[in-house]
C-alpha cells in the first residue's frame, strides 16, 4: 500500500516539476524576447490561448465563488455552508492566476495599472479590468477569515465578519457584471465572429454558463476533495447543486437554441465543416449529454453520476469559450491558430501552480470543516503528501 502511494507521489511530483521547468523556461523566453518569439500570435490573430483559456475560462471556472456565497449568505441556505470555504479558495486562486496570466499576455505588463487613472467608460475591457480588480479584492477579504482564524487574530476577524454581507452583495454584483462582460467584449465584432457564436445575447450566455460552471466546479471539486483528502462526501448538498444545475442548463439550452434558430444559424450546423464539428462538440458536452444524464433521478443522486455530469459541463463550456475566442475567428481571418509550445507551457505551469497552492492551503489552513476531526484519525507521516496526486491528476483538464 505504502509503496503504491509513494510511487504515485513521486510520479506526480515529477510531472509537476517538469511543468514548472517548462513554464519557467517559457517565461524566460516571453520576457526576454517578447510575444513574437514566445507565441503563435499574429496581426491576424492577436488573442490566443492566454486570453481564451487563462482569462476567459479562468474567470468562468472561478464562478463557483459568487454562486455559492450568494446561495449561503444571501439566500440563507445553510446546508451549503460546509463547502463554502474550498469554493472561495478556488475562486480566489482562480482570479489571482488570471491576473498572473494577464502579465504574460499584455504587451506592456508594467502598464497594467493604467486603467486606474486612464479611464474610458465606453470600453468593455475597462469595465472588466475594474471588476476583476475589485472582485479579486473582495475574494481576498472573503478568504481572509480563514487565514485570520488560523493565526487567531480576533480583531480583524471581527471587522471582516461585520462587513461580510455587504461584501458578498458587492461581490455578486461585480461577478454578474464581468462574467457577462466577457461576452460583451465580442459584441463589437459582428462581421468577424462566426454566426454559431456571435449573438446579441452573448452577455446573457456568458453569465448563465458561468453559473452552470460555478455549480459544476463546486460538485467536481467537492467530489475530488472527498476522494483525495479522505473527507466525507457531502452528498445531499451535491444533489441539491445538481438539481439547480439542471434548471440553469435547461434555461441556457432553450435560449441558445432559440437564438441560433432566430438568427438562421441552426441550419449551418447541418453542413459538415470545421466550425460545425466544434459547434457540435461544444453543444454535446455542455448541453445535450449533461442534460440527458442529470434529468435521470438515478444519475442525479449518485456521486459518480454527479461527478461525471459536472466534468462534462466544465469541459463543454471550456470548449464554448475556446470556440467564441478562437474557432469563431478562424474563418474570417483566414488563419488557423494553434498555440506555440511556450504558450502551452505557461498555461500548464499556471494550472499546476493553482493545484499546488490549493493543496498547500488545504494542508495549512482550516479549509474543510471536518479537517480537525480527521486530523487524529490519519496520523501516519505520509498522510499529508498524497494531495499532490489530485493536484496533478487533472492538471491537463
Amino acid at each position, binding site marked *: 500500500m505504502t509503496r503504491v502511494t509513494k510511487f504515485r507521489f513521486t510520479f506526480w511530483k515529477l510531472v509537476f516539476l517538469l511543468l514548472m521547468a517548462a513554464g519557467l523556461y517559457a517565461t524566460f523566453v516571453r520576457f526576454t524576447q517578447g510575444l513574437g518569439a514566445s507565441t503563435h500570435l499574429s496581426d491576424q490573430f492577436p488573442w490566443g490561448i492566454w486570453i481564451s483559456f487563462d482569462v476567459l475560462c479562468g474567470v468562468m471556472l472561478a464562478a463557483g465563488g459568487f454562486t455559492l456565497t450568494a446561495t449561503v449568505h444571501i439566500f440563507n441556505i445553510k446546508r451549503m455552508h460546509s463547502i463554502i470555504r474550498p469554493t472561495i479558495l478556488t475562486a480566489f486562486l482562480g482570479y489571482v492566476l488570471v491576473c498572473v496570466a494577464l502579465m504574460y499576455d499584455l504587451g506592456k505588463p508594467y502598464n497594467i495599472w*493604467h486603467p486606474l487613472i486612464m479611464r474610458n467608460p465606453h470600453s468593455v475591457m475597462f469595465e472588466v479590468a475594474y471588476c476583476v480588480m475589485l472582485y479579486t479584492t473582495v475574494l481576498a477579504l472573503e478568504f481572509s477569515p480563514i487565514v485570520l482564524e488560523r493565526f487567531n487574530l480576533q480583531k480583524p476577524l471581527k471587522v471582516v465578519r461585520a462587513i461580510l454581507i455587504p461584501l458578498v452583495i458587492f461581490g455578486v454584483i461585480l461577478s454578474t457584471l464581468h462574467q457577462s462582460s466577457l461576452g460583451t467584449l465580442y459584441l*463589437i465584432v459582428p462581421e*468577424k465572429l462566426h454566426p454559431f457564436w456571435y449573438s446579441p445575447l452573448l452577455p446573457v450566455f456568458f453569465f448563465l454558463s458561468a453559473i452552470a460552471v460555478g455549480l459544476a466546479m463546486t460538485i467536481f471539486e467537492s467530489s475530488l476533495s472527498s476522494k483525495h483528502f479522505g473527507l466525507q462526501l457531502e452528498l445531499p448538498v451535491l444533489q441539491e447543486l445538481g438539481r439547480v444545475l439542471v434548471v440553469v442548463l435547461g434555461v441556457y439550452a432553450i435560449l441558445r437554441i432559440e437564438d441560433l434558430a432566430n438568427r438562421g444559424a441552426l441550419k449551418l450546423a447541418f453542413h459538415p465543416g470545421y466550425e460545425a464539428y466544434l459547434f457540435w462538440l461544444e453543444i454535446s458536452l455542455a448541453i445535450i449529454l449533461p442534460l440527458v444524464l442529470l434529468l435521470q433521478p438515478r444519475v442525479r443522486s449518485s456521486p459518480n453520476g454527479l461527478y461525471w455530469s459536472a466534468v462534462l459541463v466544465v469541459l463543454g463550456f471550456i470548449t464554448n469559450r475556446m470556440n467564441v475566442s478562437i474557432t469563431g475567428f478562424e474563418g474570417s481571418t483566414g488563419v488557423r491558430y494553434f498555440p506555440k509550445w511556450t504558450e502551452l507551457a505557461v498555461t500548464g505551469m499556471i494550472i499546476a501552480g493553482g493545484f499546488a497552492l490549493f493543496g498547500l492551503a488545504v494542508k495549512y489552513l482550516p479549509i474543510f470543516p471536518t479537517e480537525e476531526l480527521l486530523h487524529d484519525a490519519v496520523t501516519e507521516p505520509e498522510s499529508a503528501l498524497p494531495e499532490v496526486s489530485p493536484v496533478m491528476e487533472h492538471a491537463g483538464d
Partner: protein
Amino acid sequence: MSKALLYDSTVCIGCKQCEQACATQNKLPYDDTVALEEQQSAHKLTVVLTRNDKFMRRLCMNCKEPSCASVCPVGALQKTALGPVTYDPSKCMGCRYCMVACPFSVPKYEWGKLFPKVQKCTMCPDRLALGKQTACAEICPTGATKFGERDDLIAEARQRIHDNPGKYVDHIYGLEEVGGTSVLLLSAVPFETFGYRTSLSKDPLPMLTYRVLSHIPDFVPLGGMVLGGIWWITHRREEVALAEGPKPTDKTKNGRES
C-alpha cells in the same frame, strides 16, 4: 470641420510614393524589400495593392466613430475633431483589443519587440495641426490621394461617379460604412477584390457594446437593493422561526460563520 482623404483608384498609377512618404513621416524603414510587401504591417502603415493592373490603397480608415478608440481601456486611441484617430504609446498596456475590434483589421503589433507598440496610420496629426495635408496626399503625383474637407470630398466623389458613367463602381466606400470614415475610396472594380468588406453595417459598431454598458449605472444600485432585500427576507424569516419555536438543528448550524 473634419478633414478626410479621397483616394480615386482610377487615377492611381501605382508608383508607391505614398508608401515611401508615409514611412519617412512615421520614421519607419523603407526599401525595395518593404516596397514589395503586399500587406499592412507594423512597419508598413499604408500599402498600394495591385490586382490585374488595378490599384487600391489600404490604410487606416480613421472612422468617424472608431471601434478601436471605443474599446481601448486606457484611451490610448482617440478620435480627434480634425479627423485623425491618434495613438499614444505611453498609455497603451498592450491588450490588443483594438486589433480584435477593428472592422478593417488595421492596427498592427510590433510582435518582435520587447516593449511593443500598436502601429497604424494616424492621418499625420502633427502635419494637420500645422495646417498641412497628409504626407501621402502631398507626395501623390497624380492627385489620386486628395486631402480636403470631408463634405467637399464627398461632393467631388459623387460628381466623378456622375460624370463618368460606367467608369466606377457606384459606391463611395467609407461614406456610410460603420457610420462613415475619414478615408473615402473610389474604385473601378468591386471593393472585395482588395479585401474590403462591403457587408459592413451602416451603424457605428461601438453602439453594440455601449448599448449593454450603459445599463451598468442602473444595474448596480438595483442589484444591490434586490440582493439586500432577499438577504433581509431570508434572515427575517429565520428570526421569526427562531422566536416562534427554535428547532435544535437550526441552532447548531447557526454557530458557524465564515
